């Protein structure tokens, strides 16, 4: 990631980069992203924090070490570890190994996933999970495909299969303006999940713009620039609509 306003034009990155991805003048710094191979060398010498390498490789034990630092708070609150993302399914081998270790230590475990994967992949994680939080973004497959690039068939299938397990399940709906923010769309999801015997609740997650600066720093286009954050009142109304199906609904 590149945060131009933090740059002090010291030129360290210029010297560090083997691919000449940085052009630095006295008061200007151009980052030629197409030349960047993400080797991270420049970030090690960027003391002002203008260049930051996103993500780092860690072993299961390294992650567990960090996790254990806060163990006392899990004990006090009944909390634990939640694998989130991206989607932890994408690195399912690592997720599996990490969850296994968590369970060995006796930690409560949860996962946040879109469940857009083969059932077997998800099923392999289930024995080590106490709680599954999965997204259902839309019931209409076409609309789902338009917005996310994939059909929702696998996802809904997986949700059905999950509902037949005994795992505690939370279904979450990110409320995106113009995509799924009408009563009927939310109601359709509520209808779909209301029979799930292991459903804890349906959670409506209001669209927010917290990711915008990160997109910018990554040089990515932020597709949601023109979207307006829904009002609390609107979310409340959608939540009431979903609640009519008789299930518990939470707003966030």
């Amino acid at each position: 990631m590149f945060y131009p306003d933090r740059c002090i034009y010291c030129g360290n990155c210029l010297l560090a980069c083997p691919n000449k991805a940085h052009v630095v003048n006295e008061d200007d710094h151009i980052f030629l992203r197409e030349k960047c191979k993400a080797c991270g060398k420049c970030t090690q010498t960027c003391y002002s924090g203008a260049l930051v390498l996103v993500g780092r490789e860690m072993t299961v034990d390294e992650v567990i070490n960090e996790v254990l630092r806060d163990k006392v708070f899990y004990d006090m609150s009944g909390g634990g570890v939640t694998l989130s993302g991206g989607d932890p399914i994408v690195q399912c081998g690592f997720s599996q190994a990490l969850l296994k270790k968590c369970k060995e230590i006796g930690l409560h475990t949860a996962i946040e996933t879109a469940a857009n994967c083969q059932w077997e992949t998800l099923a392999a994680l289930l024995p080590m999970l106490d709680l599954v939080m999965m997204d259902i973004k839309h019931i209409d497959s076409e609309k789902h495909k338009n917005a996310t690039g994939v059909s929702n068939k696998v996802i809904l299938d997986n949700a059905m299969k999950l509902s037949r397990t005994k795992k505690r399940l939370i279904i979450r709906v990110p409320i995106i303006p113009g995509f799924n923010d009408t009563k009927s769309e939310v109601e359709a999801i509520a209808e779909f999940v209301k029979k799930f015997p292991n459903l804890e609740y349906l959670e409506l997650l209001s669209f927010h713009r917290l990711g915008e600066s990160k997109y910018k720093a990554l040089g990515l286009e932020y597709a949601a620039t023109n979207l307006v954050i829904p009002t609390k009142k609107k979310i409340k109304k959608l939540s009431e609509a979903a609640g009519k199906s008789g299930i518990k609904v939470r707003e966030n």
Partner: protein
Amino acid sequence: MAEKFSELTYKQRLEALCKTKMQQTKEKQEVLLVMDQDDHGRILPPPELREITEYMGPSGEMVRDAKLNNFKPKSNHPSGGFFGAKVCGENFNLFLKDHPVYVNPMSSLAGGYMAYFMGYRDPSWPPELASNLEDEQRKYGIYPGIGATQHFCQDMTIGFKLGWGGLLRKIRRYRKLNPEKSDFYDGLEQVVLGVQDWIRRHVDAALDMARKEKNPTLRRNLEEMAEINEWLVSKPPRTFREACQWTVWYQMIARMYNGSGSMGQIDVWLKPYYERESAAGTLTDEEAIFHLACLLLNDTQYYQLGGPGAEGKDTTNKLSFLVLEAVHRLKAPANIGIRVFNGLNPELLRRGVEIMFEDKTGFPKFLGDMGLVEGFMKNGYSAQLARQRVYSGCHWFAIPGREYTLNDCVKINFAKVFEVAFWDMMNDSEIRPSVDELWRRFEMHLCRAVEVTKEGLDFHMKHMHKVFPELVLDLLCYGTIEKGLDASNGGVEYYNLCIDGSGLATVADSFAAVEQRVEKEGLLTWSQLAEHLKNDFKDAENVRLMLSSVPRYGRGGTRADYWAVRIVKAFTRFVKERPTPAGFNVIPGLFSWASMISMGQTVGATPNGRHAYAPISHGASPDPGFLRGGSAPTAMAVAVASVQCGYGNTAPLQLDMDPGLARGEEGLAKVEALIKGHFELGGTMINMNIVDKKQILEAHQDPSKYPNLIVRVTGFSAYFASLSRNLRQLVVDRILSEET
């Protein structure tokens, strides 16, 4: 006009009192400009009695005080000062005679204080009593506590049993047994006679006001007030309201005499009065809350709620909740801590957390019983005694009536010690600089700093009673009157003197920075580093950032975390390896009060990238911005727990949290888990602010926009608008750093 003659409810009266309080605070902000300390319940003297003086405050800005211009102390010393029990007592007596009366007909309790007696002590120390320690104290940035007053806790139940008349008789009885101590008894007697006279004048004022008062509620209130105080001039309190009124008199003279704000377990010593009347049906909870609110408006004393009694059983009772409720209704600064332990009534903790998030006034604080008790026992005390050591000051605890402590008065500036060690090494041409060598010299100088501090404590203990004895606190201690000895002079049973370290993160991060950038990576030579420090990183912002970007203390598992623990262990070892040369036990802690600014002003640039003379880090806290990329209350909680000195004095955790964190039942439970988790790890105290970032920024730009905004600065809470710009900036930095 009709309303003027109708009865008033407690609610209406409390609203009127809060309004008056806001007016008084506003006037203080206008006249005194800045107040870098507790808000205090102090009221300004009437304009015709005001004498404005200026002095340098703890945050390095000039602060003002308003003195009574009608009082002039008498001197018994060529320096113009006054020293010794007798003359201090006599002068305080005269001071009280000249002090105006204050009766607010809305309040159930009479009295209000307007000036500080300490302001008239000039000089405050006899010049001929010089110690030879000053050079070294300056060298190591030591706040030696020599001449420091109060900072221990009396036992209120002694006063409740005896009343002022009983105290006077007790003094006179023991005077006969110890005739050689007449000077001390004279002093004590003058204090009691002074307060009795002051109370009497309030009786007259209340009666006078009652005659003129048209409102039936207020007239009755004033008449009752007169009657109650007529009784209290010499007799002990009989009712809940009388006990509150007695407390008001005591806390005012304690505060005026030498600034004492320590009170202890209010829910224990007021309990018998509450329960008796409550059972008899003569006191409703509404009335009790009202009296408590009046008491808490009178001053911002330090109280503990709940926690174990001597035998380990929870002391929480109905009154504990009523005290919380009283502050909740007032929404004024208050310094009250809930003592959290396994046996605590969970509802008290829950109610405390709820109020913390609802009111956002930095109230209440949370106290970690396990770390306190187990730690204090390591000094050789029983669990019973350790449990009785109760919360009674900014970051500290004391056994009421039985222990002298100098808590929060004695500090060593770790950053200054580091600076001495660094230059000591660099200027030694015989050796090659290294991190090992730097640590060796740091240890050596820290050890010496602790020794110098201990010698200073002995110096204080030897002379303080001859200079300015604790005439108000002495009244309610065990042994002082009996033996005819001031608390600082062997009057009480236990002596556990405080030595706090300050600026931990500054030094830990500095060690980590030189270790990585100079020694490991070789990006900088020692002499280059020295040059940059000398030049305060002039034209070398990149070098400064290179040093400050080394993973910091607080992140967990870093070298800086390792250094922090190592520094605290060494400090604790030096403090604990032997008592002071005269044999006083000393207890280490980590705290800088609001002195981060003044302490920083003596220290040049440090290898953690801190600019010369900038503030040092606060107490045991990581430096703001220690964890880039996220707010991290749990990381802070783990870090601060890892650097506890472990002998019963505290290293507080300062948390500034977003109001959104405690949404709903689940949120409250999470905050509780954070509190309990920190204490489970051995933490001793949590000061929390719930801050709306936007609001605090606006208030910093224009404090007058938010005159009611209260923040917990460190151990104390204050109106944000009353603080100096420097101190406001530190609070703002701390809060904003969690975002970047």
